[in-house]
């Protein structure tokens, strides 16, 4: 990662907002999807650089996106999918798909296998992170809710 985190945030957020437009999110909520994607990417990048473990990075990135999307879902009374999909997509291993294909073309079985298994691991970790966050009860994310006054 040769660009500073703040630049990475804006790049990833712009890309995630682009995905939100492609998936036809409501106009007033596109920027929230972008925010999810930007934060998820920065968390991924930071954890990856500091632990040298890309799977850990993807895991925490996906957890961040899922937590943020559930929080926004409560705040804006909208399906969490609106924020989750733009938030997760930057973490999907498109580059590994290319590297797998390159291994196939060069008939390099070793590279093919390594890159394909990395791609599958990425997808699996994303799925585990989503399942983990979405199995928490909804009330966890009702941050800032007005408590009912005691009678």
């Amino acid at each position, binding site marked *: 990662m040769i660009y500073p985190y703040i630049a990475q945030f804006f790049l990833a957020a712009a*890309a995630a907002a682009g995905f939100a437009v492609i998936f036809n999110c409501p106009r007033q909520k596109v920027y929230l999807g972008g925010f999810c994607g930007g934060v998820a990417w920065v968390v991924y990048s930071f954890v990856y650089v500091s632990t040298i473990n890309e799977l850990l990075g993807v895991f925490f990135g996906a957890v961040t996106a899922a937590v943020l999307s559930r929080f926004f879902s409560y705040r804006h009374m909208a399906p969490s999918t609106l924020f989750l999909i733009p938030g997760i997509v930057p973490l999907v291993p498109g580059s590994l798909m290319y590297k797998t294909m390159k291994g*196939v073309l060069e008939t390099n079985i070793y590279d093919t296998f390594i890159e394909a298994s990395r791609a599958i691991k990425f997808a699996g970790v994303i799925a585990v992170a989503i399942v983990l966050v979405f199995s928490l009860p909804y009330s966890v994310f009702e941050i800032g809710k007005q408590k009912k006054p005691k009678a």
Partner: protein
Amino acid sequence: MEEKLLLDFAMGVGEIMLKNGAETQRVENTMERILQSAYYNLMPETFVTPTGIFAGITGPLSGSVTKVKRIEGRTINLEKVAAANELSRKFVSGKISVREAFDELEVISNLKEYRQSTNLVSYVLISMCFTLLFNGTINDALLSAIAGAALGLAMSALRKLPTAGFITSLIASIVVTAAILVFQYRGIADNYEIMIMGSIMPLVPGYAITNGAKDILYGDFISGGTMMIDAVLTAVFVAAGVGIALTTYNMLMGGAAL
């Protein structure tokens, strides 16, 4: 009569949500909540798969009624999902009648998509930003933006054809890789590999992975498994498109190593 109307309305909401990319569990839940909003227990049962909806009620007036709806051609339009969700919430809380709800359903199904130009800009933005995020240079990012524009144009042309989603992914990834290889041939690309990685990002199956994981979490193994197969197939077809373009380029260049 009222009961059948309620079932029709629930089917309409479910159809809009499923057609535009909602998760199975959300569709089942919403339909069931609408059917339970009747004055007495209709004993509603709903069963939703990615390709069809089944819903049944047993009421004192209508007897046992079951409706089946086959869903063809899923597109992703999350605005309609959000609007249908909102409508069902309004209906269940009793703010609007069935008649008004049907009118609003009509409005939702006619909601406009983003303009072509907006879509094109977002394809450009995605390709450019990911090229930079994968450590590409500014020059590469600008060239990827052109490839992204080609991808956006190809996608909007392909959407009009009655082809399966996989063929769309295949042709789109061939187009985008070919565009980048043209730059490589002209010698203006710094690192064509990073450019290809960044420019195929708009095609990755992020939607299928996300919704598949959620479906499996809620125990809808049929939908979740289908979604995961969808994700794998899309990835394979995108990679195959890249492979076709690269191999053709290699052949034209007389087998020169890339």
